[in-house]
């Protein structure tokens, strides 16, 4: 399981990459990826390119990130979603809360 986070050079954007399954087992690692960084980014990018699976706990974790990033004012993009992931996000209508690219 690998969750990595990388701030942009200007520190304005934090990219979180999730490889493999994104489910309850990754709870702590996902939180650490945005809580244990020394920057306060304005924007977040969650890269799901190598995410094979996403369950409802993962949706909950995305809401936690959204809360952390300012709730309704949060700027979070979910990028590189494969068809399965996109379907799960669509069922929950998460496009109302996140920019899904």
């Amino acid at each position, binding site marked *: 399981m690998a969750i990595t986070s990388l701030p942009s050079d200007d520190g304005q954007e934090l990219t979180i990459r999730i490889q493999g399954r994104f489910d309850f087992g990754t709870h702590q690692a996902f939180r650490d990826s945005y809580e244990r960084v020394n920057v306060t980014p304005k924007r977040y990018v969650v890269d799901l390119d190598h995410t094979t699976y996403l*369950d*409802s*706990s993962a949706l*909950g974790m995305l*809401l936690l990130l959204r*809360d952390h990033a300012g709730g309704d004012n949060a700027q979070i993009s979910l990028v590189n979603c494969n068809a399965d992931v996109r379907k799960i996000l669509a*069922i*929950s*209508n998460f496009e109302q809360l996140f920019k899904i690219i």
Partner: protein
Amino acid sequence: MPLDPRLSVLIAEDNAADRMLLSSIISRQGHRVITAANGLEAVAMFEQERPDLVLMDALMPVMDGFEAARRIKLKAGEALVPIIFLTSLTEGEALVRCLDAGGDDFLAKPYNRVILEAKIKAMDRLRRLQATVLEQRDLIARHNEHLLTEQRVAKAVFDKVAHSGCLNAPNIRYLQSPFAVFNGDLLLAAFKPSGGMHVLLGDFTGHGLPAAIGAMPLAEVFYGMTAKGYSLTEILREVNAKLKRILPVGVFCCATLLNISFQRRVCEVWNGGLPDGYLHRIATGERLPLVSRHLPLGVLDPADFKDACEIYPMALGDRVFLLSDGVLETANPAEQMFGESRLLNVFAANRQPDLLFDEIQQALTAFRGEAHDDVSMVEVCMVEADSLPRPALAFVDNGHSSPLDWAASFEFRAQTLKRFNPLPFLLQLLLEVHGLRFQGGALYSVLAELYSNALEHGVLGLDSRLKCDAAGFAEYYRQRSLRLAELDHGYVRFHLQLLPEANGGRLVVKVEDSGPGFDVSTILERQRTAQSLSGRGLSLIRRLSDRSTWADDGRGVSVEFSWIDQA
């Protein structure tokens, strides 16, 4: 276990000189010594003194060391009492016998005190390790038992709350894994006062007790508000607001809610985050997907929450099928998921609707290779309104302070009609009258019909003839919400008269609206003959109330309910 380095050591040795020598070595190392001169004595001393460790001569009269070791190990049970064999035997086979008999180590004669001390220390470490393992095993077992007891109690309480509804009604089939509640699944169904039904299938994020805990307030709100006659959208708003308030961020409830009216043969659907449900039209075999259009419950602030429902006409025998994602996410050993297309294949192969559940279960079992345990499904069938038991209304007071002789009038104007549902309010008021409680369901149905007629046909000017087919039906409800949103004048009036009579009483309800009225005789005649999707309303009112009369201009209606005291 205390870290006392002092051990009690049993020495079993038939040679008195050797026994004394060993005793003095071990005493000098600070341990307490118990001695025995043969195997039988050793077993007896073990029982009496329960030493921590045994030094056992292999060859002794009366009972040899091998037999004594076997008996001592048996008596020691799970605790590790290390036995070190003392032996002048050197051939391998004899040493193997020592270990086979339960010995943990051996020491060759003549004794070397340094090696003896080292072996006693090593055995003591093993002994303590074993004791710690046993202690922790017992602790885990106790905790686990405690947890299971808690879950059993929690589940019993939960079942009382969650299953207080009408899941056992003859037109509902459902399947829920026994402990699905601890997977966060929730299935509720309740009769509305009008005899219709609300059904909810929910799926909380996460697992275990945290997932089950949000289900309790949800169930309470669902049952409480349904019984009082609140509409689906009002219940949705309340549930969402409550879950948003009490659940931590990241915990929410994917859910589909159904409002089924058997009188009007319609089904109202709200899906937030659950997989597609299906409306199965028996006549055509068509399966209409009921798609998730909303965020799950407990995510949005009340101000942002969307309560828009979709409304579908249903024919007798049509079914609504809902499932939780546990069905689609059932995985096979290769970690593939069952998925939607396999489900649709099961649908396509289905010939007898009543066997659908079994066929889905068989498909899941065949796919996964073992029984599955995270599955919730429910199917609700459209039936004749009269075929279901009407719900008895439950009250906490005894009704002795029942008000009997009063009148009240209400006028609900445009701004109110837009967003307020006066029916629960009126029903609660009228059910203060004890005598009316026995026909609370009929009363509610009639009030609901009168109100929607006054609002939709009177104030909003909608023509029920639109509802002649499925497309017109959808158009009707589209126009309804459009006109309601733009409403800026008009009213619906309720006049309530309570009259005490010799052995009971009588309620007279008059309803008026601001609409242009209608030709009473034409409409009644049309309703008597029509088998369309529209206008079961007026005949229902006539059937359920004791008297009903329309003003000639069709702008007002009067209905009566009377009762005889149940002495």
